[in-house]
Structure formats: C-alpha cells, structure tokens
C-alpha cells in the first residue's frame, strides 16, 4: 500500500473537448502504420509518384534538348523529333495538364481503395467487434470526437496518397518550367484540392457505413468488390449490350467520383474502356455522390450514436 502515497489529485488545465479527436486520429493512424499492407500500398503509390515525377522531368528536359531534326524510329522510318515528343507527351499525359493530375490521382486512388478495404476493419471495425466503443463513449468528448478523429485519420490517408503528391508534381512543374505556371493554372491548383476532397468524402463516408455493417476485412472486401468492380461491369453491360440509357452510369459510384474529379480539374472526360464514350452529366455524378455520402453518414450516425449501447 506504500505506493498509494504517490497518488495525487489532478489540478492542471484542460484542452477543449474537440482536441480529443486529434488524439484519436493520431492513434488511429498509428494503427494503420503498423500494418504491412499500408507499406505495400504506400510503396506502390510512391513508385507511381516517382514515375510521374521523373516522367515530367524527362519530357521537359527532352523538350529543351530537341531540335526539328529528323530522327530514325527503329525500323519504321524517320520522324520529326519535335513531333515525336509532342505525340509522346500527348499520349502519356505527363505534361502538367489537367489530364496529368487526373490520371495520377485516379491511379493513386485505386491504391487508397485497396488500403482502406484491407485496413479499414482495424481502423474502425475492431472497436465495434471488441466492444471498445464504450471506452470512447464514456469519455467527455463522446462519439462526436470518435467519429471526427477516425474521419481525420482516414482523410489523412486519402490525402497522403492523392492531394499531397499531386501538389509535389504541381510544384515540380513550377520549378522546372516557370513560376508563371502557378498563376496561369489556378483551376488546377484548386482542382487538386477539390478532387482530393471528393475522393475523401466519397470513400471515407462509404468506409464508415460499410464497416458498420460488415465489420470484418472479408466482409469489406466482398462489399467494396461489388461497388467498385461488379456494379461498373453491370453498368457497361446495361449501356453497351442492352443499349439502355447512358445515364444508368450514375449507378457506377467510382465513375461518378472520377467524373466529378475531372470536372474539378477541368480535364476532358476519360470515358470507360469498352463502353460508349458518352460522359455522364457532372450534376448527375454529383447527385450520386451526395446521395451515397448522405446515406452513409446517416447510417454511420445511426450505428455510432444509437442510445442504449451495450456496455
């Protein structure tokens, strides 16, 4: 009992309640960082980033070096060096245009989908499965802090893969080209933020709702595979084979997210491989996204804020 003498009452100052959500976000991020799947997906994301980073650099460097001279292209004859580089830059879209950022973010967001589906259960599901929710509920910040903290953690992951590297690519062009690029492309700058936020809300709200239902990684994989692979395939069949109205593409959630991203960046529509190339009206895409987000948040609040929780 001697150790009891060391107990001292607490008389210090306290943070506002919402600050607790930052602690939740920090600990949630730590939970993800200890998962191997994070480092695998993160490495692939970094590789993709490096591809774009050095790709852009290479094209700008080549553009500086090239002349109008005719060069030999394998056994296919001769081509104008300038035309050839223009062609390659156009095809690979590594020229700092809106399409560059659209392609880059699209690729990165596929990585974040894989990460969230594989690590989402440890981010949120384990609290539901192991009864840890009561730990957060009984604290003064309650479930508001919990939801905010987890949302911040998942959002940070999304932006770590999409918005933040996109800004590095944007800055790279400012450095290797001219700083006027920054002032000539304000839409691109804000478009990157916009697309990041669309992916953020689109994926994180869906994650909250689906983890609330399925709770386990296997359940999440099945559900997200349905949303991101099965439904898009069905949409292609409905529109191309059954010749239904192209507006049915509104059911393809990920296409809607990408369509909105294109709109934010001002990029030309990418279309769907093997499908009729009639882009969906962005307002319809926005409607789809807002509906899914609203339903997901409503469901999330129903699960996490229900009264009469189990102790």
């Amino acid at each position, binding site marked *: 009992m001697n150790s009891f003498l060391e107990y001292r009452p607490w008389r210090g*100052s306290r943070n506002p309640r919402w600050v*607790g959500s930052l602690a939740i976000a920090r600990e949630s991020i730590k939970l993800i960082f200890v998962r191997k799947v994070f480092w695998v997906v993160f490495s692939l994301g970094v590789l993709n980033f490096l591809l774009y980073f050095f790709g852009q650099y290479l094209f700008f460097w080549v553009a500086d070096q090239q002349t109008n001279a005719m060069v030999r292209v394998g056994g296919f004859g001769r081509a104008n060096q300038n035309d050839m580089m223009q062609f390659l830059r156009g095809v690979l879209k590594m020229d700092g245009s809106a399409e560059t950022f659209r392609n880059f973010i699209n690729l990165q967001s596929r990585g974040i989908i894989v990460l969230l589906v594989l690590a989402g259960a440890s981010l949120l599901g384990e609290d539901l499965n192991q009864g840890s929710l009561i730990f957060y509920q009984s604290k003064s910040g309650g479930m508001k802090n919990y939801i905010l903290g987890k949302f911040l953690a998942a959002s940070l992951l999304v932006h770590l893969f999409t918005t933040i590297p996109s800004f590095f690519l944007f800055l790279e062009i400012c450095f290797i080209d001219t700083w006027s690029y920054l002032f000539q492309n304000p839409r691109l700058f804000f478009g990157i933020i916009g697309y990041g936020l669309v992916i953020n809300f689109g994926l994180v709200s869906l994650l909250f709702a689906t983890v609330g239902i399925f709770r386990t990684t296997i359940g999440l994989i099945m559900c997200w595979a349905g949303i991101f692979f099965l439904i898009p395939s069905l949409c292609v069949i409905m529109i191309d084979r059954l010749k239904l109205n192209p507006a049915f593409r509104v059911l393809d959630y990920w296409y809607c997210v990408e369509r909105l991203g294109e709109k934010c960046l001002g990029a030309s529509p990418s279309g769907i491989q093997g499908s009729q190339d009639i882009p969906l009206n962005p307002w319809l895409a926005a409607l789809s996204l807002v509906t899914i987000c609203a339903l997901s948040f409503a469901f999330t609040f129903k699960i996490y804020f229900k009264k009469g929780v189990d102790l």
Partner: protein
Amino acid sequence: MGVNPVIQCKNLTRKFGSKTVLDNVSFEVFPGIIGLLGPNGAGKSTLIKLILNLDLPTFGTIRVFGCDQVDLRKIGFMPEAKAIIPSMKGFEFVAFAGELEGLKRNDALRRSHEILDCLGMGESRFRKLGEYSTGMIQKVKLAQALVHDPELLVLDEPTAGLDPPARTQMLDYLNYFSRQQGKSIILSTHLLGDVETVCDQVVVLNLGLCLASCSLEKLLGNKVDLFLLEVVGDLEKLTAILGESCIQVQDLGAIKKLSIQCGPNADITSIAEKVLSTGAQIKKLIPLESKLDDAFFELLDQQGSSSRLGEQPF
C-alpha cells in the same frame, strides 16, 4: 446525511418497446462506496448508461452531483468489457484516455505513469495490452478511469475474473480511493462478498424495480452470521461454552463439526478465542454464508411473493 447526494433518481423509467427495463426507480445515494446489486437483467447496466448519459430515460429524471446534464469529466468509467486497444502499451492507453478527457499530451503521459505506478504496474506498463493478464487489464481499466481525477468512479464488475489476491487488492484500491482520496464509487457487481467488504450503501435492483436503497448497515439489520467449525476436542463442552454467546450451536452429525449461528455483531476472532480456551484445536472455522447473501435473497423472495399477491413491492 447533511451532504449533497451523488446521484438522485426520481421515477426513473426506461422502456425498450414494450419491455420495461427500469420501472419507476427512485433513490438517492451519498458520497462513499455504493454497491449496485441485482441479478442478470435487473437493470444495473441500463442504470449505469443513464448515469453516464449514454441512454435517455423514458420518464423520470436522474441527477448526478445535482445536475441534470452529466459532466463526464467528473466521472470515470471502468467498463466490464475488455474495451482496450491491444496494440497499445499500458501507459500509452492510459495517457490516451487522459487526452480524451482533455489533459494535455505531456500531462496525460506524466499522469498515466503516476497512476499506473500507484496501482503497482511497475515495468509492465511498458508492455502491450495484448500481452496483459486479466488482473493487469483490470488495473489498466481502473487507471484509465482515474487518469483525469474524477469525483465519481463507476465500476462495472471490477473484480470479474480476478484470483482471490488480485480481488482483495482491487477492493483495497477502492477503499483507498474512497476513504483517503474522497472519491465516490459506484460498484456494480454480482459478487455480494465484494459489496459486503467495501460498500457503505447499496442499491438493490431486480426486474427493473428498486428493492432497496439504503446503507449496508441498515440492509443487514439484525441478520445473523453462520459459521462452520471443525475441531479436535470435547464437543459437548464446546457446545455449552459457545451456546452462552451464540444464538444456536448445532451438531451437524458428522464427527467434530458444528454449525454456529451468531448475532449481528459476531466476531470470528472471539469465537476462535472461546474455542481455544476449552483446549480444543481448530481444524476449520469458516463463514458459511454472508449476511448480505441472506438479506439479498430475502429481498428477492419478498418481491417474488408480493408480485404473486399482486402487491406493489416496496
């Protein structure tokens, strides 16, 4: 009592659909250790949820420290469920709980070490929670409830799954935090022995009704203690001597075994002294059942018979 009640319930009712989990419960409890007793389904967990504002009453009011709106910073809750994050270290988890209660990061860490040290966690606080034994998890759960120095501790089955020494230690902690640190403690448990050991007041619930809310002393009233004595010596002489001070001494028929029924203030030591004064050797002297067991089951029986008669219990 001349002091403000910690919790006041007035006509507290909680219904889930057609099922009434708490039915018109009214009581007041005062600072100290309050035992919340009742069989499974009595409404204990629902009452705790209402105290913590995790649930809302259908009718009636509940006031904690005189306020309708509970300030959770004044309450520390130790849940019955594991409710831990297995990948976190003990001290990190407690500090995390402190941060959730508004403590600054450095203060929370310092406080976490202090509390865990107080609870005898030593170096084990640097291990991951996933590697902890049940006893250690219970201590960490108590620490996370204490980290922000609340005025009221709500403990749901704090001694569940503990071996006897760990259980005794946990009860010692409760006694210490209540008697020496002035904290009020609500102890929800099935273990009547725990309540009898540490509590000052009890609230007995059954089937959503409050069967009793009073001091432990009052509940026990003039209940008797029953002991089993196994001796080597002269039983007749022993029976005669014990008969002078005990209510009833009964030869159990088995060789050298006596059942001793004593009055409300019986002391096991004085019984032992009397036995030894006869020259007999004690092989075994154990309480057969606690007085609280007796009082608790009597309350349940009374409720059962009054319900059968269609009367309103209490």
